[in-house]
């Protein structure tokens, strides 16, 4: 549905930010973009959402090159949303409800419909209990969830998440993980996540692109990518711990920890017999 | 990019020209009787109305500018809550209402000043609702105009001096206007309005003159810093 073909992006000062990048988001419903600080992940997202126009190459949306005229960008963005890292830069209203409703009101959706969708979004990010507090009383994790709700209320087809768990505690991180999983599995959205948290990427994504100094230096299923030692090393990344114990302790590769524990218990029981 | 840099530069410029007023110079709630409260509101009203229509024009052309006005307004409010180190030990209030006058014109800044003064009254208890008109006139209109005027006249001769005088005299101007407003509302029982004016000017001079100088110095430092940037 959304694809990037041979995109090169250049900063105003002439530095090459992205070099000849091709990414096809139809490869999976949950895609991870990993790379070190400054590898170009944010610039990539800005190109994908039509905020920046590539120097060369194309963004293809439903097979057609993206047009950068205002009306077509507007249509495009009804389908594509992004949650940025810092919630303080995406919340414009002191009132949680008004903020989540903002995008819908811009589209002229009726207030009745808005009410349903805002309340649904609040429920999905588990924000209902603090939704009538003013935003400046909320904690960082709560603001983050409001920002996410503001985007998922739009019911876009493709959702980008830039560092969705940075600065969040383990509990809130887990709840964000759950939101991402349910968006891609149950809601049929395409979810694209960039993160430094390899465990998050491993838990949430199926397909991964590795970005290094503005170039894609590897792509593949998440289980395959994290087995490539050289690739990870040269891009300054590390392995999720489930991969570590696979590589170093000889366990099969599991997608989540409960599978691992089940396997372990099964093996133990078998040995007993 | 060049254009953005220019806008930033111009904005910075105004931060530097931003008059700082002492906390003590906001006329408090209930301090003016209905006549004077009304009169100063009427005097300030045209500036607000004209300013508002300018803002409307600016934001009709580019609605994103609403965001900028919001940010600048909040910035001005924060400056007003910062404490200025002062010789007299008292704390002062940099109210950067003049900020942005060059981008938006001095008139729209009267509106921003107006809103900031409402927030100061409601969230900090500096000033009041009934004295809003008088405070807007001295701090949101006279101050920025003095700073702006002096700067424009002197900047080609000596930039630092222009900045220093612009900031310091705007501060002093505000203090003199406020004293006059107080004197008019509360004439001296023996010597009338003039006597009262002399007393208010005299008594607030203790804090205001050092503050005006301090503000001038601070503004010059920031100005040079922003030029470097």
């Amino acid at each position, binding site marked *: 549905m959304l694809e990037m073909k041979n995109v090169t992006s250049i900063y105003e000062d002439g530095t090459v930010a992205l070099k000849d990048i091709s990414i096809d988001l139809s490869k999976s419903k949950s895609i991870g973009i990993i790379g070190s600080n400054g590898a170009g992940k944010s610039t990539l997202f800005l190109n994908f*959402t039509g*905020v920046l126009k590539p120097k060369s190459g194309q963004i293809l949306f439903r097979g057609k090159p993206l047009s950068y005229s205002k009306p077509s*960008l507007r249509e495009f*963005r*009804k389908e594509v949303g992004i949650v940025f890292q810092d919630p303080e830069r995406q*919340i*414009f*209203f*002191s*009132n949680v*409800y*008004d903020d989540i*409703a*903002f995008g819908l*009101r*811009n589209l*002229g959706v009726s*207030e009745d419909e*808005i009410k349903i969708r805002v309340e649904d979004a609040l429920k999905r990010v588990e924000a209902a209990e603090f939704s009538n507090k*003013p935003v*400046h*009383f909320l904690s960082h994790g709560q603001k983050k969830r409001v920002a996410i709700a503001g985007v998922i209320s739009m019911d876009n087809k493709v959702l980008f998440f830039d560092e969705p768990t940075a600065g969040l505690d383990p509990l809130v991180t887990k709840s964000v993980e759950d939101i991402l999983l349910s968006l891609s599995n149950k809601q049929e959205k395409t979810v694209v996540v960039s993160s430094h948290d390899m465990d998050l990427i491993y838990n949430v994504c199926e397909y991964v692109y590795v970005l290094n100094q503005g170039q894609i230096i590897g792509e593949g299923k998440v289980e395959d990518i994290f087995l490539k030692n050289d690739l990870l090393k040269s891009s300054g990344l590390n392995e999720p711990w489930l991969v570590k114990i696979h590589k170093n302790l000889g366990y099969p590769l599991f997608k989540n920890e409960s599978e691992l524990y089940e396997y372990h218990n099964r093996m133990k029981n078998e040995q007993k017999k | 990019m060049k254009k953005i840099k220019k806008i930033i530069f111009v904005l910075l410029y105004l931060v530097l020209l931003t008059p700082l007023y002492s906390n*003590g110079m906001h006329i*408090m*709630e*209930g*301090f003016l009787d209905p006549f004077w409260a009304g009169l100063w509101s009427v005097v300030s009203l045209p500036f607000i109305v004209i300013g508002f229509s300018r803002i409307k024009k600016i934001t009709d052309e580019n609605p*994103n500018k*609403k*965001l900028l*006005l919001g*940010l600048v*307004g*909040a*910035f001005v409010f*924060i400056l007003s*809550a*910062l404490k*200025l180190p002062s010789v007299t030990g*008292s704390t002062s209030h*940099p109210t950067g209402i003049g900020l942005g006058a060059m981008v938006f014109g001095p008139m729209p800044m009267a*509106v921003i000043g107006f*809103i900031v003064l409402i927030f100061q009254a*409601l*969230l900090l208890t*500096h000033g*009041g*609702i009934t004295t809003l008109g008088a405070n807007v006139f001295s701090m949101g209109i006279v101050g920025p105009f003095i700073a702006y005027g002096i700067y424009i006249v002197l900047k080609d001769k000596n930039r630092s001096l222009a900045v220093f005088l612009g900031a310091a005299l705007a501060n002093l101007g505000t203090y003199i206007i406020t004293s006059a407003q107080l004197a008019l509302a*509360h004439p*001296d*029982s023996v*010597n009338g309005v003039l006597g*009262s004016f002399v*007393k208010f000017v005299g*008594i607030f001079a203790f804090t205001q003159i050092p503050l005006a100088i301090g503000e001038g*110095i601070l503004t010059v*430092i*920031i100005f040079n810093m*922003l030029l470097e*940037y």
Partner: protein
Amino acid sequence: MLIIDKFAYTNKLKSINPRLKIGLSLTFIALALINKNMYFFIGIICGGFYATVFLAGIPLKNYMKMILIPFAFLLTSMIAILVSFSSDSDVFLYSIDLKFFYGGVTLIGLKNALLLFLRSMSSLVSLYFLTLTTPMDQQIYTMQKLRIPSLFLEIYSLIYRFIFILLEESLEIYRAQELRFGYINMKNSYLSLSILIKTLFVRVMRRYKDMQIVLDMKLFDGEFHIGKGAGGQENA
């Protein structure tokens, strides 16, 4: 961070109809302005105090601290109004000889000062009742009902939202400077304060740039829709 705002959202009268709270406060401020009767002033002060401290449950200690905020202005002005100068000592109730003229207190001056003091206190107490019991979103909602132009309210609401962001930022920058001895003498205090203002300003401009992108992504149509429907306004 801003204590008045905090209490406005947590006090016991929070869910009372804002039009009632605002109407009452403004009425009393207006009455205080036209009134000249001392007992009426004392009545407003006692009533406002009772409503704010006992009905709304604002802690007495915080309340008294807030009352003291405008006192620097009040006391300085009172002195200016109270004390007069004249070459004739007869006009004064009490005076001292300052060689060239007399300085003293006249009966009218005393009466004016006392009335002014009571009037300011009455208005202040009424204003506090409003600000301490009425959350800002209720205030904005009420202004909307009063047909204040929406452009004005949009900018007003944005400023209110951003105040808290910038306040936290400036506080953090200040602390980082203070812990590295940025405010130990006058000279470096000026330098540090300038740096703080510069840093904040640069960050404000960056924020503007970033937020415009978000506006685009949220399909901004030119209007910040405030307090239109449900949510937060149910009790307004």
